[in-house]
């Protein structure tokens, strides 16, 4: 097909030795300032990989490296720009003239509670985190969220006692704590949201009847004998059984969906 594909194939033939050279030419090098100190790193790297390229070895500030754990909260400002930026070092790409600092720890006390003993009333979030009432609706929390969660909105839900909504909006929170570091009212948003989600999961969402039934069957040892039989079965026989089992997904794919 296209010319560009030809280029790719030729490049592959030349092997990986020239890879970094090629990349440099194509994408160039950017200057970043790690806590104020200048380093030149290849463009196209995440902030995390750029720091490593420059020679940093992480102990703090690095966890899952895939956007789930909130260990690598990073605050940055591009030279001459007014706004501060907030993101995860493992997700955000470096930009030229970026000033970087990581915040791998957030001092923010969590309320201590026993989920089994608390009353899931409308005011329960206010009871454990009364400071949410001090929210001034400045929206700084939302602006500092690397997950683009509407943080202020879920705090407002929490104040109103709408626990289900607070849980829903906050669901994708990775608990990095940047919201709490920026809040002028000293709210610990991500801890509030954690409590809201646990209350919703435990008390508000309807429960599965199938699960209750299955647990009873297990308790009555309904499956013990059959599993025991499989465990003792000779390999040939169980392979046959496995091979011939009906696969639900295969049927639904053929049916074209739900």
């Amino acid at each position, binding site marked *: 097909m*296209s010319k*560009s*594909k030809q280029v*790719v194939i030729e490049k592959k033939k030349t092997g*990986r030795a020239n*890879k970094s050279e090629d990349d440099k030419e194509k994408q160039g090098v950017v200057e970043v300032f790690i806590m104020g100190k200048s380093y030149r790193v290849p463009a196209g790297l995440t902030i995390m*990989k750029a720091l*490593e*390229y420059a*020679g940093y*070895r*992480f*102990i703090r500030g*690095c*966890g*899952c*490296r*895939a*956007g*789930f*754990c909130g*260990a690598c909260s990073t605050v940055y400002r591009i030279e001459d720009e007014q706004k501060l930026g907030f993101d995860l070092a493992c997700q955000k790409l470096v930009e030229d003239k970026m000033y970087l600092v990581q915040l791998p720890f957030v001092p923010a006390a969590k309320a*201590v509670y026993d*989920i089994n003993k608390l009353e899931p009333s409308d005011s329960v979030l206010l009871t454990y985190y009364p400071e949410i009432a001090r929210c001034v609706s400045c929206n700084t929390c939302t602006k500092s969220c690397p997950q683009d969660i509407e943080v202020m909105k879920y705090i407002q839900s929490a104040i109103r006692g709408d626990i289900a909504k607070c849980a829903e909006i906050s*669901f*994708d929170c990775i608990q990095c704590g940047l919201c709490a570091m920026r809040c002028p009212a000293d709210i610990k948003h991500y801890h509030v949201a*954690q409590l809201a989600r*646990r209350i*919703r*999961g*435990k*008390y508000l*969402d*309807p*429960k*599965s*009847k*199938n*699960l209750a039934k*299955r*647990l009873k069957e*297990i308790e009555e040892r309904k*499956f013990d004998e*059959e*599993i025991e039989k*499989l*465990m003792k079965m000779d*390999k040939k026989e*169980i*392979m046959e059984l*496995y*091979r011939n*089992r*009906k696969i*639900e*997904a*295969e049927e639904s*794919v053929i049916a*074209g*969906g739900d």
Partner: protein
Amino acid sequence: MKIINGYPDYMMESIERVEEKRERNMKEPVKPMSLKDREEILSKYHPDYMEGTRRKVRVGVDKGKLMYNGIVDLLEAKPVVDPKDIDLGKIDYDVDILIIGGGGAGTVAALFAYESGVPRDRILIVTKLRHGDANSMMAQGGIQAADRPEDSPVLHYLDIYGGGHFTNKPELARALALDAPGIIRWHEELGVMYDRQDDGEFLELSGGGTCRNRLHSCKDYSGMELMRNIRDRARNLQIPVLEFCPVVELLMDDKGQVAGGVAFNLETYEYYVIRAKATILATGGSGRLHLSNYPTTNHYGATGDGLVMAYHVGANLLDLDTIQIHPTGDAYPEAIVGVLSTEKIRGLGAIPVNKNGDPFVFPLEPRDVESAALIRECKEGRGIVTPTGMPGVWLDTPMIEIIHGEGTIQSQLSGEVRKFKRFGIDITKYPILVYPTLHYQNGGVEINEKTETRVPGLFAAGEVTGGVHGKNRLMGNSLLDYNVFGRRAGIYAAKYAKKAKIGKLTLSHLEKYSRMLEEANIRPTKTAPILLPEYRGEMAISRSLDIF
């Protein structure tokens, strides 16, 4: 090179062919392979069957056993601790139960040790990074449990055993299948927000190699939602956790029991002597060893430390001649190469297709088979090669919205949407490029149903163990694994600790191990466990001095 919709123009041209054939591909799916076809494709394309990826270990209880090179390298390295440097006369922490690892298995073990009557201040979790920094946090797809009327733990057992190529320890597979519904109930009690239908029943999807839809999920943040709840419970109970202090070697006593460990403070370089009546190993996997040179989905601390420490005290290892490569690691853009795109994408109906837009494999084969099929497609020239030389095939995500309706991807896969949006790719409209990535350590320290290893006083749970999944794990069984066996470890270790009497502490097993290395004529230049991978730039490393 022009970028359109986040992709270089030549990749967009291939996407056009994917779009043209989408309707046909959905109507005429590829059938699952027979067991014989599976064998054949695995033997040709999976790294577990390749020459040169593995060798026989020359030292220790498993001497002569085949394992991946990177694992053997660790086992044949010098123990990182010199016993002469450690003063065992001063005990820094004296507890009933030491839990090594603050991920899923370790935290669940702590909760159930507490429920079993061990006071909170007699439990200690030590962990290399932060509490919760673990592969457990990253699992996306979900957790299996046979709770629908058309399903049963018997079928779950059959799937586990067949998926593992009939190499699992049957009693461990049974525990996994039978304990599963109870675990889901425990999660409900904790407050986990599972995806549900309006009537309260769980929304359950299929995973690779499962014969029934039994995958319970929490959007595509399933692991995070479980870990958040479990950790919150541990924090409310104020169970002590020592962060950034990995245990670097186990301690033994003069009766041959494991009796705690030596922890190392990564920030101050101090060591701590921890004496414990029972020790639970929950250190997780080893993706960061990049076995067979694969990129990995694993978290930063997944360096196989537990395997090494357990081997030094004489515990045996299973099935480390296999690794799990996950079929759908990201292949483009370069910044996220190796990061996971969840199996739930295929569970929801997306199909892998090649550069011509043609499907080539049943989308829900067990992971090893699915991966082998993707590798074959790329090796035979039907993959797409990215501008940085990475091969891959398309995973046709827009199919999901055609099957389940608009908005499904945003509501079910919000993490994936977010990840690709950063690079200008809208996965509701365009497919994503994937290639297998190192995902899971199938084997590890052998345990029994009570999570006991062959060394008294040492229990183990989670990814560090072997036998549960045999030579291949199915999706949705690792979150289940850490819950089932983490719980059992907590319960059985608590029982053991009540009766255990610890004798005089010793690190003589390390001296013995060093002598065994010598006798085997191995002269190690490296030490293990390695604790963290080395990712510094080559230039920076080549000019670094060890003077400070």
